[in-house]
């Protein structure tokens, strides 16, 4: 089960992902992010309630690395639990995607990129 809520704070677009991101629910996440990056540049992903992410879920974030590197979008993940963080770490995605603890850090980081 996954729930995706979005809201805007200042010029940051915040996507809150809750629950499990597995093979089937990752499609919703992919669609949402795909939709948003067309109109928004500063994206924060709130992972405080993200319980589990499967390899398909990681694939979603992975597919935007190219856009992030090109500077087309700025995306920062924050509030990842240890389990989830470990999954990103093992795959090595933490080397390519920005992850911080709090929303404030995330905002600062996005502005700094």
């Amino acid at each position, binding site marked *: 089960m996954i729930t995706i809520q979005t809201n805007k704070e200042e010029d940051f677009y915040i996507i809150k992902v809750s629950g499990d991101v597995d*093979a089937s629910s990752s499609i919703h996440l992919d669609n949402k992010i795909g939709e948003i990056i067309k109109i928004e540049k500063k994206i924060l992903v709130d992972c405080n309630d993200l*319980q589990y992410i499967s*390899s398909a879920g990681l*694939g979603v974030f*992975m*597919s935007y*690395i190219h856009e992030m590197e090109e500077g087309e979008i700025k995306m920062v993940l924050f509030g990842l639990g240890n389990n989830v963080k470990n999954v990103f770490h093992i795959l*090595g995605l933490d080397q*390519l995607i920005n992850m911080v603890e709090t929303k404030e850090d995330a905002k600062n980081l996005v502005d700094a990129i």
Partner: protein
Amino acid sequence: MATSGLMLTFSQSNDIPTGIPIFLPFLSFIIFFISLYVFYHYHLGRLKNANLQDLLWKVFVTGLIATILSFGLKLFEFLFRNHKVGENSLFINFIYFLNLGLILAFLISTFVVWERFIFYQKSKRLIYSWRFFIYLLLISLFLIFLQLRYDDPAFYIFIGISFLSSIYFSVNLKWVPYLNYRQKWKSILLFLLILTYLGYFLSQIKSYSNDVLVLDLFVNITTLSISLFVIVYGITSVLVLLFNLPTSSVFDKKLEEIINLQRLSQSRNTGKNKEEVYEILLESSVSAVMADAAWLDIDQPGIPETKQLRYKIKKEDILDVQEHIPKGKIKKLLSTDPVKNLKTNRYIASIRDYKYRSILVFPIFIQNDSLGTLNLLKEISDGFNDEMIDIIGTFINQASISIENFNLIDAAIENERYIKELNIAKTVQRNLLPAVLEKSDFFDIIGFSESADEVGGDYYDIFKLNEDKTIIIIGDVSGKGTSAAFHMSQLKGIFHSLVQLQLTPKDFLIYANNALAKGLDKNSFITAAYYIIDRKTGTIEFSRAGHCPTLYYDESKNIANYFYGIGLGLGIIRNNEFYRYVNIDKIKYNPKDILVLFTDGITEARNNNQEEFGYDRLKNLIIENAALTPVEIKDAIVQAMYSFCGTNAPEDDSTLIIIKFNENRT
């Protein structure tokens, strides 16, 4: 009977005692009577499958023959009219007896057929009462010895009882409704002819004056009772048939509807196709409501245009009708659907200023999918009553069920095909993994792999490069199922091409990443770890591309550790920057040390509380079971994982490889 009767006549007319007792002709009459009944009963009993029409026809023919014979006798009598013989009482009596024989044969055959008619639908009570009637007749037959005359009260009582019984049995006319209109007319005609014969015979027999006859065998209770019964039943049948004539078309219609319904529901069994179901639906509906014209719009998947089946209407006229509908009045929306949308609702509408005056429109649905619309037209206004709507509803339901059955069976066949193909894929994919992991003389190895779906995305392989070096790879394709299995086969191809080049683990992963960059979907990646076990140096050299860390058990210290090191999944970066993200690790191994390779299906296996099996459990299990053989260690871990998950089905493919080094290191 005739002989003894004649002898009696002869003796009486000549006043010569014959020595024949009076009871002899009576007895022979009784025997004749009973044998006729038995004969016809037996004869008709053999015709079990004869329908009532045939039986009626038989009676008619019997009557015809009897009448012709009777005419013959009359002619015979006429010829001898002026002759001496013609006035001879012996001759007259002889003719009388022959006539009597004919009429009795006809009467009894008719009686037996009527009996069959009455028993068209049997009931226990009917059988008992009929048996009573037969016994009564049998008893009355023996009363002939008493020679009761008209004026005897007993005579009247018996005749009265028979008359009442005849009326009682005459209500058993259940065969009537089953005849169609034509059959009813035919039956009426036959009944009338049979009754005419009977009337003729009775008048014939009456014409013999009692004075001439030495013995009037006709006037007895039994014959009169049977005649009464035959006449009463015959008259009631004719009347009931007449009264049933106007409604017989309704009955015919209902029967036709049932047959049509059956055709609709059995279409699958009779090898028909969907088109034929629609044709039967249109045909049946038209005949059920007596529509003057009709058409059926059939939706075609993926095409906006509908296919049209038309009955007595041209394509142009349909457009005209559709134009006229909004001008007329929607009489009645027939569904409970709160959305009053004409497209999804059944309705009756009146049409103004057009040759058709009313239309019944019925959309056809399977659940929420529209199949089409049935349109029935009539030249009269208000041409559709509630019964018609009901029967059309039933037809449409049955047709939808038939169509749905077709769809379901098609889907089932398709599904069956997919399952077969998936099984092939499963076999192919299973064959991509080594059947057994080749043991080396300095280590033991055992592998375990299980897919969450039919086909999985985990990969492992072993390659003996030379006497000293063995290479092992483990990989996990992101996602699962068929697409994962395809990517996994790519990895196998890459492994077997590159492994012979004797690359370092890091270089292998860089080349693999380059190769996969061209072959993977945008969202897919593969994690892998590559190990070179070198007996000469006693080392394990390995690199990790985003794969689960290597678990290593050091026997001398009795500890187990995960080797993380940096790494990045294959296919995540698809340019030449990848080398930045790979490292080489090196372990010196000793006898009894254990190398554990696995995919995240093991550590991320979850129980019902959504807890993960985790790295710590795996590590502790290795330490606990380190003294065992690789097979036993593997079994212990797999067992522990399953009991941890409980009823929770595995979500991901899981692979586990245990390598235990032995003393043979030189």
